[in-house]
């Protein structure tokens, strides 16, 4: 029956001079904006979609201690998940669409699509430079996302246990039918290093905008990765390589103190632009830890440029490198200076470390009163780490820093007070490793922390 009908229809079509010959008629795109990714332009366009690409997980910063919330503000948070997260609850900290998990893995998927399609494109010589750049950007994007997940949802890296510690799900294919599961921590970091090392090779030395990755950005990220792996020699190596290409610093003396957001966006320190945002850490809610605020010297320009005094004499943060009410979470040269100083100090090269710190502080202190710091009475490393905290607050780095410092035995514990209830996060509490969202556990083979 079906066959007969088919034949008759074919006859009808032949009568109308059209069978499979209609292809040109039917090959027209239904929407002119639709494209199957097949050119370098298409792939670059995917990577330039900053509205998605720019976001980093904010959950680490929300959990950290650069800020606090008053009971009143905590009560006024709209999401119960955010309230629970603030007090480090084990459950109920994610909505059913956990953005903190989605942001990095969406970028990883995007990067995988680009990498897969690039491999299929045989580039002629003219395009080689662009091909390389796009490949570098995609690898960089993927590595950055992997690292941000590893720093939040895994233990701090320890070379002795990395083969047994749970790492993160590593997805290197855009095939969503593959089931996710967790790698070891060593595999995770090896993948990040591998991607970044390749990205360094592919990326150009400069990019047209901080929304695009460049070689110095990849080197900075490599340095950051080694830092959190405790490999200070390699961290130093890559920080220096980065600064050899870009060592610009912004002189805070030139900034307008009274401006609502004094730090200009896309300024010369920014190596790579990205953003973290979440209701608890919004500058209108988050109050800066008073001990931290008081630790700034009056000659320290950051004291006035970073903080705004509230009517209740608490302080909120206005020093975002986004120059607005969202928080910068990308890469900037100031972090690289501080990594270099830290590694030099850890490797015993105090003079160099100090010179490095002074180079940064010169741009942070009131010029007229600035005196280069000499070898301190106490530990130089502590001093560098103190400035690391003062310089890099509200950038998503405090949480992984606490984890790595506690691994070194610094015993940093955190405390929150809400409604006369005190919540404590003891040093080396397993809760420093955030639980993986339930929705991930139910739909994959991923194992909970």
């Amino acid at each position: 029956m079906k066959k007969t009908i088919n034949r008759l229809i074919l006859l009808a079509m032949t009568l109308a001079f059209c069978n499979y010959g209609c292809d040109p008629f039917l090959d027209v795109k239904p929407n002119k904006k639709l494209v199957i990714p097949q050119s370098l332009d298409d792939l670059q366009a995917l990577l330039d979609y900053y509205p998605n690409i720019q976001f980093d997980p904010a959950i680490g910063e929300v959990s950290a201690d650069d800020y606090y919330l008053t009971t009143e503000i905590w009560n006024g948070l709209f999401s119960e998940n955010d309230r629970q997260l603030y007090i480090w609850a084990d459950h109920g900290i994610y909505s059913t669409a956990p953005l903190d998990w989605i942001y990095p893995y969406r970028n990883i998927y995007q990067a995988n699509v680009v990498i897969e399609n690039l491999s299929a494109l045989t580039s002629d010589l003219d395009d080689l430079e662009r091909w390389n750049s796009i490949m570098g950007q995609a690898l960089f994007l993927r590595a950055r996302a992997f690292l941000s997940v590893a720093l939040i949802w895994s233990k701090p890296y320890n070379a002795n246990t990395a083969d047994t510690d749970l790492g993160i799900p590593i997805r290197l294919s855009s095939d969503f039918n593959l089931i996710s599961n967790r790698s070891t921590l060593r595999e995770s970091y090896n993948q990040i290093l591998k991607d970044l090392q390749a990205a360094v090779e592919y990326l150009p030395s400069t990019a047209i905008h901080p929304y695009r990755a460049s070689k110095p950005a990849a080197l900075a990220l490599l340095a950051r990765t080694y830092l959190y792996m405790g490999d200070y020699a390699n961290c130093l190596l890559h920080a220096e390589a980065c600064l050899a290409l870009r060592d610009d610093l912004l002189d805070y003396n030139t900034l307008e103190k009274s401006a609502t957001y004094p730090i200009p966006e896309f300024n010369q320190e920014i190596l790579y632009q990205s953003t973290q945002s979440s209701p608890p850490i919004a500058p209108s809610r988050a109050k800066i830890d008073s001990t931290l605020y008081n630790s700034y010297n009056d000659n320290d320009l950051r004291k006035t440029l970073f903080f705004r005094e509230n009517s209740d004499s608490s302080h909120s943060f206005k020093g975002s490198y986004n120059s607005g009410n969202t928080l910068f979470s990308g890469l900037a040269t100031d972090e690289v200076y501080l990594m270099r100083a830290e590694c030099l100090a850890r490797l015993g090269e105090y003079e160099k470390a100090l010179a490095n710190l002074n180079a940064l502080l010169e741009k942070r202190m009131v010029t007229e009163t600035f005196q280069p710091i000499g070898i301190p009475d106490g530990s130089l490393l502590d001093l560098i780490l103190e400035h690391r905290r003062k310089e890099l607050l509200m950038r998503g780095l405090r949480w992984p820093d606490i984890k790595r410092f506690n691994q070194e035995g610094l015993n940093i514990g955190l405390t929150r007070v809400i409604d006369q209830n005190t919540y404590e996060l003891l040093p080396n509490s397993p809760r420093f490793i955030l639980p993986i969202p339930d929705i991930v556990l139910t739909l994959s083979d991923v194992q909970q922390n």
Partner: protein
Amino acid sequence: MKTILKLIIITILLPAITEAQPVLQGVVKDADGNPLTGASIRNSANDDIEHTNEFGTFQLNIATIPISIFVSHVGFHRADIDINSYDTLHITLFPLTNVLQEVEISTGYQSIPKERAVGSFDFIDSETLNEQVSTDVLSRLEAVANGLNIERRATSGTDMGIRIRGLSTLSAGAIRDPLIILDGFPYEGDINNINPNDVKDITLLKDAAAASIWGSRAGNGVIVITTKMGANRQPTSFNFNANTTVGKIPDLTKYPLMTGADFIEAEKFLFENRHRFSDTAARSRPVFTPVYELLFLQRNNIIAAQEVDRQLSNIAEGNLLKQYQQYMYDASLNQQYAANIQGGSDNNAWYVSAGYDRNKSALAATYDRWNLSFKNTYTPHRALRFDVSMLYTLSESVSGKTAYSPSMGLPPYTRIMDESGNPLAVMRTYRQSFLDTLGDGRLLDWNYYPLVEDHYSKTTASLNNAVVNTGASYTPLPWIALHIKYQYQQQKTENNTLYEEQSYIARDLVNQFTVLDASGGITHNVPKGGVLDVGYSSLRIHNLRGQLNTDNQWGSHNLVSLLGAEFRSGTTSGKNSRAFGYDPTNLTYGTIDLKNRFPHLITNSNIFIPSNQDFTGLVNRFVSGFVNVAYTYDDRYLLTLSGRRDASNLFGVNVNDKWNLLWSVGLGWNIHNESFFTSVFLDKLKVRATHGYSGNVDISKSAVTTLMYNSAQSPYTNTPMALITQHANPELTWERVNMSNVAVDFALKDSRLHGSVEFFLKKGLDLFGPAPMDPTTGLTGSITRNVASLKGKGFDVELTTDYTFPRNIKWSGTLNLSYYNDKVLSYYRDSDATGSVFVTGGSPSMIRVEGKPIFSMFSYKWGGLDPATGDPIGYLGGFPSMDYNAITGLGTTIDDIVYHGSAIPTYFGSFRNAISYRNFSISFSVLYKLGYYFRNEGIDYASVMRANPTGYHQEFNERWQNPGDQRFTNVPSMVYPNHSDRDDFYLNSEVKVKKADHIRLQYVNFSYNFNTDKGFLKSLRNAKAYLNLTNVGMLWKANDVGVDPEYGAYGLPPVMTGSLGVQLTF
């Protein structure tokens, strides 16, 4: 027993040449004396059959007499004749009485007599349609059609909510409206372009035969609209119809909104808890309500407590709904005028019409529509025919006042006008006390005045639509015809929204981008003046169809076939742009910088000036081939076969997957034409059945990764940006849907009662549905996969009765009853079943739980209110729980959920009556929808806290306040801090689900036919005056919460309208 069959046999003796003739000769004519071609004459002795030729004559071999013969013809009563001689017979057949009048069903490709149809059709003539008065035609269907339901809650911008026999897919984005055919071609313009006065009839195609005729887009059924046309050799007639419709002022006070006093109480509670105090420091200066501002003043000791109380009690008297109703809404007024002339000569048949509609809505928005149509058929020769028609529509609509909507964010006590009639500013984006001090008068007024905003911002939309249809037919032999048809449709729309300099939008934009410097200088990055948004879109569709029709009769065999192919190409293009600093008097505009960002005056963040530039370009192409064969044996046995292959320009799909085969088979048996059929009760009895298969691919899903370019480039890198819109999904296959339909048509003797009963069964396999995705894959939410199977069943019953009471009072009643119920047979779901998977929102949504209807009503099990706190209690794992996050999240299992039933009507239909006495007639239709549930609205504390007013429900004053209250109320207490999952749980719990069953009187129509045989009306052929009431009211509803379940608690049901009109025919 009364016999309505009448037979006249006139026997005329002719000179007899031979004594005994083996052949009987005769002629068959209708009552007017016209010869009937194709009538069948059957010898009862041997079932030999002969047919009349084009002169109505026949010859039948008869061996012996006496004998009986049966003479039958489509649309006529059968004549049973006893033959006692070989004399030439003169037989007159009488048409089936008026109600049984033979209906020609139009499938859009061909017209078939209903007697030969086997599919599921519903036919609605213009007389029935015109019992209602409306600007459009489709809204009239629900009250008169069989098996059609309009879903009013789930409708989106493009979804008209028309449903025929449920859904065939579980895919959320799929089109669910039936395909609309206007005069033989799919209609894609604005459906309001069609002038209802031009419509001759409408046929619904409900079963699989519809899909196999019209292809993959017909999976939801087909609505075939045929417009009026003249006929050959018809005297010229002129028709005029005019009516005016007045609508009541909508009753806004029906919104279950909190009173002003209650809202103040809630606000005081929040203020005591220092809610949003931190927002006073926020750089974005978020707005506070007037009550909050007052409480701040009291707290800061600026105003004394007594004065605050006095002012609060004054504020509490404000009534936003009342003011809106009084000052914004008015009675609507619609006028409609239509005229047409039709006629025909030997070679020509023509129809010309014109229509004008002018509508003014309750919010003073206007809609003007002009319709012109012209149709002509020219038959120069018996074998040749040319058709030309043109439909033209021009419409213009101008926006009116802003409707009240809970989402405007205004507290219920807000006033929009003061006692002396001056417009008042209402809360908007920024804090009033901040705006008052800003800019030392250098800024434009930053207040929003809803009362007068419409004076300064207007949207004007004009639409031009033309459909040109040409066709030629060549009939070389009587039984074969070649048709070629071409149709071109072009619709152009232009939308202009002008925000004048005084409008809020324009003032707001200018202010946002103003830079105030300390020295008192001022810079406008957006130039002062109006803002003009211009949008154009055009739709152009070419259709070309070639068709070969045959109609062959030999002996008792009749074979009608249709073979054809068609091409269709539709192009949509559009552009939008915005001009700033626009001056409508001399058409000048200002320049702006779209490349750089500017500081927002209030937040100081750098933002781009919102430009609104956009271009679209869409192309839809279809190629189809189709075949349709209908074989009839002796008007008793019917067999139809039809098939169609469709291809379209799906993107990213292999050629083979572009082609789609649909087919159907139908069988029918006209039992009443059997010689053995001698029922004393029944006049007509027919059984028919169809079975068909259709397949579907989701146009938006493809086998490769596709990306879509963003309209604007990245302003940072100045390069194009693109987003992945489709993920490579090679595992997708066709959806397969099988549908069967079995029906019985019957008519009692003397036509007291006739009708049909149809059963249908639908089975869908490999249906698309969203499969939840692990977010680690990088895909958020879900992805479409072939994950489901579905079974749907139902029936449509149509019963019509005609009865004449004494004194010649005539009553005709039609009962339409439909039942539809489907069941998800299987649905792939991993253990992701969060509470919200089952329980979502107010409007019916696809729930997709195995063993339950697609649109099911589930709710959280209710455990009452906690006697100590007034917290709602739910269930988790069978035990009472207040872990709202787990209840509404992943903690919930199917056992914690209550299943109520279907969320869409399972039984629905209408009961239409027409009663006439002398010149008066009255008709009305009662609509009913039964067997389903809806979710009522309630207080949403989260929305109160967020100043998001969709949840300001009046049941706030019934909330739990003191221990013991739980005995009287289910409304949870107000607590601080609020847990939005607690609200979610309560609003989606058992106590909020109500029965949605209801019966409403849809319309009543009175008409009076004037006597035109004398007096000054003598020149008229027909004159009628009518009075019509539409949306008359709810007759009964099952719920006790006073909610019209079709619109929900926050929906505004349409008001009753009354129309008065005349219809004249010359």
